[in-house]
């Protein structure tokens, strides 16, 4: 086994929530040293998300924070303190990459704008990601992922035609943008390796989402058509939907996802259904016919699926070669055999919240593997380690700064 993929990489992280921190996880999971700068004066808002109001665990009891920030080190640094700049400057000298997802202008306010930093350190790679980008009249619009998803067009395209636009669960721009940021940082490292030159990267989460939905834009600009949400239907496949299955004990929210991609699939499905009389209707023989009579087709399919338990039905259909799946709920997802085969979920022991699961990314390399997972930092947990070991401060220097109240 080779050393970790990013064994010698040093990343300095400012920001909060999920979109920024999830990006650096790609590197942290593969051996990079990621130092997260935080402050009690202005805590990351996901540190405040706790299940029990008034939780005595305080800022260290957030499950979401712990799950998003595994494998990182944490330093507490009050950026509003007059001497914080000394420490920040040394952190910038230490790092290869500075990643941040604060509102535009926040780092500049602290003297950490790219132009200033690059003048001193031309090899610095700095990435800023926020909802609307660092420039433009609406850059200060105060949205989170839910707003990003709506502005990029995902909400308009998700849901039922006769109902409100919903957006994929979990605010999709928050999960697309970390992947973009990881791609951009890694490609900037290749460029720096070749040229010695760093760079600044501005990723607007809304813009990156719109690029994914380029088809949405091109349909309008090249065809004058506004795409609308259409439930689970497909332009080219029918049946293509999610159908109700039999209740299981008290749970009547059981569903199977089922897609028939061609006429061969249709004949297979017919056979699995026992070739009922309705399915022999010649209108359903061709894809064009099934698409034209999709309302009726879907009613017939559901009148069949509702007789079976989702898992049994999925097993039968998959065995026959049909593209079908139980719609996993969160409890089932955690015990999915394939995800567990790939060690997608990892368990860590957090000193405050105890044993919990976290997840890793979707990449499996032939020569590199993820490092052993370590719990997310408690607020300021590694302040002394970072200052003394990584920044080589003397004990006296560290003590002076601590007494001045910088590390809050």
């Amino acid at each position, binding site marked *: 086994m080779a050393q970790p993929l990013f064994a010698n990489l040093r990343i300095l992280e400012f920001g909060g929530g*999920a979109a920024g921190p999830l990006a650096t996880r790609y590197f942290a999971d593969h051996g990079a040293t990621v130092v997260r700068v935080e402050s009690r004066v202005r805590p990351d*808002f996901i540190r405040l998300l706790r299940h029990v109001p008034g939780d005595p665990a305080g800022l260290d009891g957030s499950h*979401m924070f712990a799950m998003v920030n595994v494998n990182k080190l944490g330093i507490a640094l009050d950026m509003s303190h007059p001497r914080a700049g000394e420490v920040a400057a040394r952190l910038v000298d230490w790092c290869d990459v500075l990643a941040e997802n604060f509102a535009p202008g926040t780092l500049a306010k602290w003297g950490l704008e*790219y132009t200033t930093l690059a003048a001193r350190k031309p090899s610095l790679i700095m990435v800023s990601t926020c909802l*609307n980008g660092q420039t433009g*009249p609406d850059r*200060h619009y*105060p949205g*989170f992922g839910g707003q990003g998803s*709506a502005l*990029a*067009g995902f909400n308009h*395209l998700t*849901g*039922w035609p006769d109902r*409100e636009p919903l*957006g*994929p669960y979990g*605010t999709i721009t928050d999960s697309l943008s*970390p*992947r*973009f940021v990881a*791609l951009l940082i*890694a*490609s900037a*490292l290749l*460029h720096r390796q070749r040229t010695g030159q760093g*760079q600044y*990267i*501005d990723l607007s989460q809304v813009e990156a989402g*719109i690029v*994914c939905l*380029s*088809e949405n*834009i*091109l349909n309008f600009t090249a*065809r004058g*058509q*506004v*795409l609308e949400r259409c439930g*689970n239907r497909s332009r*080219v496949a029918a049946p293509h939907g*999610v*159908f109700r299955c039999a209740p299981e004990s008290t749970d009547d929210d059981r569903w199977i996802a089922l897609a028939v991609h061609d006429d061969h699939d249709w004949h297979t499905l017919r056979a699995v259904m026992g070739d009922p009389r309705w399915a022999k209707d010649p209108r359903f023989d061709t894809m064009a016919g099934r698409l034209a009579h999709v309302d009726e087709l879907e009613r017939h399919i559901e009148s069949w699926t509702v007789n079976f338990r989702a898992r049994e039905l999925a097993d039968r259909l*998959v065995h026959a070669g049909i*593209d079908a*799946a139980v719609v996993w709920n*969160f*409890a089932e*997802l*955690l015990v999915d055999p*394939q995800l567990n*085969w790939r060690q997608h979920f990892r368990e860590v022991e957090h000193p405050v919240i105890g044993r919990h699961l976290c*997840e890793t*990314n*979707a*990449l*499996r390399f*032939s*020569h590199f593997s993820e490092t052993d997972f370590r719990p997310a930092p408690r607020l300021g947990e590694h302040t002394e380690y970072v200052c003394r070991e990584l920044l080589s401060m003397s004990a006296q220097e560290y003590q002076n700064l601590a007494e001045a109240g910088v590390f809050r």
Partner: protein
Amino acid sequence: MWQDVHAAGSMNLAGFRILDCTEECGYLAGKLLAELGAEVIKVEPPQGDPGRYQPPFIGDSPDPELSVPWLALNTSKFSVTLDLADGKDRSTFLRLVGTADAVLETAGNGARLGPLAHGIDDAELRKANPRIIVCRLSPFGTTGPYAHRRGSDLTVLALGGNLYPTGNPDRAPVRCSLPVTHFHGGIELATATVFALWGRLQTGLAETVDVSQQECLTMPNMTAPLQYPFTGFTGKRVGGGFRGAKAFFRELWPCKDGWISFALRGGPARNPGIQALVAYIRECGMAAPALERDWQNYNHNTISQHEVDAIQDALAAFFQTKTMEELFRVACERNLLLAPAFSAREIVASRQLAARGFFLDVEDPGRQLVLRYPGYFAQTSLGPACVRRPAPRIGEHNDLFLSSLSAPLHET
């Protein structure tokens, strides 16, 4: 007019050659790599990539050069045609592999296009080029109990846990009408490629990377499944709203020309936004008794459903009088957490995107068209990671890339 203002030569991935043998779910990867400066060559069968036959088409009659989904995600690439089932083309392909840094392909049950589907495995690829990186995208990964199972956007979403929680409580779970699994997986595949290039620089080792779409789809749930052991929350759908301690709150509202999202969520960070909205409603002459309350100390966990209904009726009446754009302007000016569910029409008209030069008119002389695209996915101090050329026509670059390969590089 399309111009290659920022030469690819100065971009991050300049000098890398990547062979893109992906099907629909992987198109985005090659596009992103090309827009970061790599030379990305789409390897297609002689009749063209099957995705070129996907509707809708520009001009509405089926034409493999005018498929909108294909044109959308294959910009900036080159195209060569090779029949990997044919011995001669197969050896040409392997010689092309000899000139490349990475091969991207989609794998798993039903994959038809890539080298693996034609029996060309890693060993054969590395015989042609010991340094070649191989990146595979498949629904579930290439090993494990689901390795040979079929999967598509809908079923991968179902098994990735992002379908169940999406939708209305009284209806089936529902997907986005465009395939988000392709987007998550496509970016991850591009990331895999760049990570492997970095790894090769560090160690000289040529990686094979196995990317699973299913694994990509758990992260979008934002840790909610990981929290299940603590919360017992299985992901039940709530539709356009959220539940406080005593009442259910609406989150999506029809306005004059579409929908906006806004919620009466309380808390010190959110209450000022609610106050600002109420002030604006008053300025517009639509003050209502239900809106006059102590918003500073508002808490969505203590308010009754009866009170919520009265406030929401007043808000609903107000939103109906405004367009998405009008409400978004107010949100930007007054820091409201209010967002319109923009369709393509409003996105293309966005002043923010115009100010950033986001849209790019890509001149396509081969098709005699100028197509307006989302122009870049990031801006960098080296230039934008932007569309560099129109999506290629079938085999458009055969001469450019294949004619020089007549002399085998690794003749045995």
